[in-house]
């Protein structure tokens, strides 16, 4: 227990960095994922194809590969960053966007097709049909799976620790190395700070789910 209390500032630092990585990647992933989902249902075949290929490739390969790509391959291609955080954010948001896209797409599919047809038949453009009619209704069924994806994102951010980014898990590993006799306590401390982010997310998810149930 002492090891946690003594290193509380370090834990806190790691916690804030993990939170930062998760929030920034989460916001980017939501935006990119929604665009991918929109592309997937768009009337343009090339967009549909691109979105489908992206989602299938990224969703079905390990996160570590995404990290290798952004931390090692991208710099070789001339895309360089001052900080590894940027690479981590690219990898995490690119990876998570694929899952977001699938969740949003399933939400879009839960809205009856007839409403989209009705919206088109009063002269709405594709973007209006999506933003005014389909997405507002899709949100209800999309929020719970999206929060699951965000919880996974928070945990996935620990992979960044292996790519020279100091975040909660990275600090935890440092502490474990320095305090070989108290590894269990160190890791319990790490787990606690992860729970500090993920448990509230879960509570939000169940609250939203209840609200949606009432709205129906």
């Amino acid at each position, binding site marked *: 227990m002492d090891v946690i209390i003594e290193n509380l500032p370090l834990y806190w630092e790691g916690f804030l960095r993990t939170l930062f990585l998760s929030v920034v990647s989460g916001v980017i992933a939501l935006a990119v994922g929604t665009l991918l989902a929109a592309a997937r249902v768009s009337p*343009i075949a090339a967009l549909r194809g691109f979105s489908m290929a992206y989602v299938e490739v990224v969703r079905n390969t390990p996160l570590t590969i995404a990290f290798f790509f952004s931390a090692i391959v991208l710099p070789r291609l001339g895309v360089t960053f001052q900080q590894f955080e940027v690479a981590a954010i690219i990898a995490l948001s690119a990876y998570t966007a694929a899952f977001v896209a699938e969740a949003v797409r399933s939400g879009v599919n839960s809205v009856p097709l007839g409403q989209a047809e009705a919206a*088109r038949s009063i002269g709405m453009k594709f973007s209006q049909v999506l933003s005014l009619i389909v997405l507002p*209704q899709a949100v209800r069924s999309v929020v719970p799976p999206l929060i699951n994806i965000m919880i996974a994102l928070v945990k996935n951010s620990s992979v960044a620790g292996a790519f020279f980014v100091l975040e909660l898990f990275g600090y935890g590993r440092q502490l474990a190395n320095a305090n070989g006799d108290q590894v269990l306590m160190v890791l319990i401390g790490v787990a606690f700070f992860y729970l500090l982010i993920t448990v509230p997310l879960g509570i939000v998810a169940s609250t939203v789910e209840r609200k949606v149930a009432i709205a129906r």
Partner: protein
Amino acid sequence: MFARFIPMTTQVPGDALVSLNAVNKHYGQLHVLKDINMNVRKGEVVVVIGPSGSGKSTLCRAINRLETIDTGEISIDGKKLPEEGKELARLRADVGMVFQSFNLFAHKTILENVTLGPIKVKGLSKAEADKEAMALLDRVGVGHQAPKLPAQLSGGQQQRVAIARALAMKPKVMLFDEPTSALDPEMINEVLDVMIQLAKEGMTMVVVTHEMGFARKAADRVVFMADGQIVEDATPEEFFTNPQSNRAKDFLSKLLTH
């Protein structure tokens, strides 16, 4: 059959508000629209009837390109239906559509359902759109339901809202795709009454329906479809009393025996 077919298709082309020219469509192997030629003049009410699977719904949906066609040409008010995009959206705003399953926007109130198009597509102010929408809702007899959500209304009321929603765009022509097929019998008339009123006011209408009463009362022309073809095209009087083709005779005899 051809004797009465020819005068219909040789009308002045400029006169046609909706014009279908040699339209073909396949669903895989199935040839759902076979070389369809049809003109609808301004102010005309055309009722399309026929057995299920005859292609009449597809025909109706093709007119505002909810269904694509393989070959042929469809024009609205002299303008050829464009490909997907802004141009098509603009043209669709001129073509009102009423669906079998109402398709009201479930997350919007009745009033919002009617004002959304005028505000977002035509750029009307909210106050202006609200005023026009209330007038339309009163006209179809559901004005007092304006603040409710679609799910709180009966089917007949929902369909009348759907008609108001389409009318709010001030369309040149209204398409009805089996508008009463999903309704309980006692609600059918309230919708048909609105449609008959609309027809009397001179709206150009294409109506796919099984309601022969409506066809007799309100139609200027009856188009009978079977197996993807237009088999007869006549006035209701002629069609119901003296059908020319065996296919139509067969269809009508089945209706009358029930």
